[in-house]
């Protein structure tokens, strides 16, 4: 028993020693490969150049793509949280289509029904659009006016910097009150006047400013989001548009991001039921969700990104072919060296590993330098061109591992060629 155990222990130790030797052999190979790369610095650098450029461009292109995608996403998320929009559809009058949204198919009753029965809906608000000349004292400005419910501010994540929001009575009585954006305030009042409580006239109708919005900046399409006036829906609808029934747009917020789809289905079902429209007919209304809009824009930028990364990876592959070329030349040039190495005891395997390791080291080193260049140039795009650029760690890892794979792939053929040399012939090679 004991004897057996001891023998097994010895075997384990032998195994350990063997594996240690293997490691040392690998270490030696590392020394060999590093030495020979070091001996040919210029050649090594030139070989790496292709990989450097490839990796750098992959990282920079992915960073640009990712950056534009991120900026689009953030701009669209500026729409609000979990937003669903419902528009009336187009109508046909005698076979002639009118503009989308012109149908008079959405009414206040529809809105109330959605609020009452769609459980995935959190906030709902109609939107009535108008625009006009705004006068305050001796200043005047032209801006767009939106009639909305108080909830609209929650849907769009609009915050009031000073003053207050609308009250329920404002909506019921169609009060002549408004909340103005920063641009409007700047153009109507001097910087020493607090707009809140001031009187302004919109299309000659006197309004009281009850709130000033937080600055929101430029929107996704380049529009000024601060050049806006909000008033109660009923005020705009009745006093400015002279309409009592039809709603030109409904903004809805779903309870959560996951419920956007469900909410949109609920709304669709409800509206179809109310208007006696079967599932297979085109409804006289359109439902758009925020996710759809995001998808629409990101699909464009995705295409761009794939295209850019594709071009960049081609340059990586070209870099890999460069490595293969130089390695092939190097194998021919170093035939005698290979012969000598074999004569002093290198096996084919050792030669294969040496050249493979050289190729891998070249591409890894090139990948490292390329990654540094890629990150650096992405930073330059940000500072010099002011492009939205996001360097993601995954792109660095991706480009780096791609470079490694290319090193192995394109290093294999020349290394194999070197390993198959016959020592005698290689030694005599001129």
């Amino acid at each position, binding site marked *: 028993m004991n004897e057996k155990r001891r023998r097994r222990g010895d075997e384990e130790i032998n195994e350990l020693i063997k594996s240690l030797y293997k490691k*040392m052999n690998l270490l030696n190979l590392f020394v060999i490969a590093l030495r020979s790369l070091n001996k040919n610095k210029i050649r090594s650098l030139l070989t790496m150049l292709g990989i450097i450029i490839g990796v750098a461009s992959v990282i920079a292109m992915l960073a640009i793509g990712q950056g534009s995608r991120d900026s689009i996403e953030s701009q669209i998320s500026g729409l609000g949280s979990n937003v669903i929009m419902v528009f009336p559809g187009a109508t046909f009058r005698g076979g002639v289509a009118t503009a989308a949204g012109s149908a008079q198919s959405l009414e206040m009753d529809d809105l109330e029904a959605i609020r009452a029965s769609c459980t995935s809906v959190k906030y709902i608000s109609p939107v009535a659009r108008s625009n006009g000349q705004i006068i305050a004292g001796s200043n005047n400005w032209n801006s767009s006016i939106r009639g909305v419910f108080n909830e609209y501010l929650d849907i769009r994540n609009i915050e009031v910097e000073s003053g207050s929001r609308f009250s329920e009575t404002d909506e019921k009585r169609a009060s002549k009150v408004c909340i103005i954006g920063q641009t409007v305030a700047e153009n109507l009042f001097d910087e020493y006047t607090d707009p809140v409580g001031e009187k302004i006239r919109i299309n000659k109708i006197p309004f009281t400013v009850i709130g000033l919005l937080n600055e929101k900046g430029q929107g996704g399409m380049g529009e000024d989001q601060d050049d806006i006036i909000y008033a109660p829906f009923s005020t705009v609808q009745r006093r400015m548009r002279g309409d009592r029934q039809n709603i030109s747009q409904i903004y809805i917020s779903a309870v959560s991001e996951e419920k956007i789809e469900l909410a949109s289905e609920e709304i669709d079902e409800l509206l179809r039921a109310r208007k006696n429209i079967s599932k297979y007919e085109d409804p006289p209304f359109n439902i758009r969700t925020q996710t759809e809009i995001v998808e629409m824009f990101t699909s464009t930028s995705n295409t761009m990104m794939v295209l850019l990364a594709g071009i960049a990876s081609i340059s990586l592959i070209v870099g890999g072919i460069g490595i293969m070329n130089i390695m092939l030349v190097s194998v021919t040039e170093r035939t005698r060296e290979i012969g000598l*190495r074999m004569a002093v005891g290198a096996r084919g395997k050792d030669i294969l590993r040496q050249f493979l390791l050289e190729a891998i080291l070249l591409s890894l080193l090139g990948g490292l330098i390329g990654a540094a260049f890629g990150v650096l140039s992405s930073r330059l795009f940000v500072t010099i061109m002011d492009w939205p650029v996001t360097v993601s760690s995954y792109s660095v890892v991706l480009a780096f591992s791609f470079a490694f794979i290319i090193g192995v792939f394109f290093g294999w053929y020349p290394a194999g060629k070197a390993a198959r040399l016959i020592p005698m012939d290689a030694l005599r090679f001129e």
Partner: protein
Amino acid sequence: MKEQDQERKKIISVSNLSKIYDMGAVKVHALRGIDMDIKEGEFTAIMGHSGSGKSTLLNILGCLDVPTEGKYYLDDADVSHLNKNQLARMRNRKIGFVFQTYNLLPRTSALENVELPMLYNPDIRRKERKDRAMNSLELVGLTDWSGHFPNQLSGGQQQRVAIARALVNDPVIMLADEPTGNLDTRTSFEVMEIFQELNEKGITIALVTHEADISKFASRNLLFRDGKIRKETVTENIKNAREELEKLPPEDEEME
């Protein structure tokens, strides 16, 4: 003397060795049934014209090639049927090569060149590798030149680095293929002086040459012709390389 010879160990033992190169249409008989031994401590010169089969024999003795027929025992091990990797291991552990064209790695220091065979022997650690390489360089008198690149060394010095490299793995036999072929007379004698010194220290050497005066430095001559040993002679008056060097006119005169 004879009895002592009997006791000596056979480093190399070859029997009925043949090598046929199949060139498609013709079959070239490079070696036709060679029988020979090389005993420990011998300094053998293998003579012959080009095409006599001496290089083929050296390649087989050096485990760079395998015989078509016959047996070859190296240090008591049958190596006639080893595979490529086993041959590589034999070359690494048992053989030291010296070539006509030195075959040093360019842009590589003398020390690193000497270290080379040990890089393929995982049993040798880094520290030991350097120590052994330095010892080896000391044996050929190049301690001060260890950091120099081959292009900074003279032909003779380069060949001495190559000899140091051949010695470093502590081989059972050193095989030299025309080691003086690229050298002038003086340098040739210098190299032969080193071979003789090493031989005196007990290192077995086999040397291929076609120069008769070089073969006079060896203790034993094998004359090859048409793939066969034609004549075996024990050198009566072994020339001493050091004495021969002194006989040469002074270097300065020679330069003129």
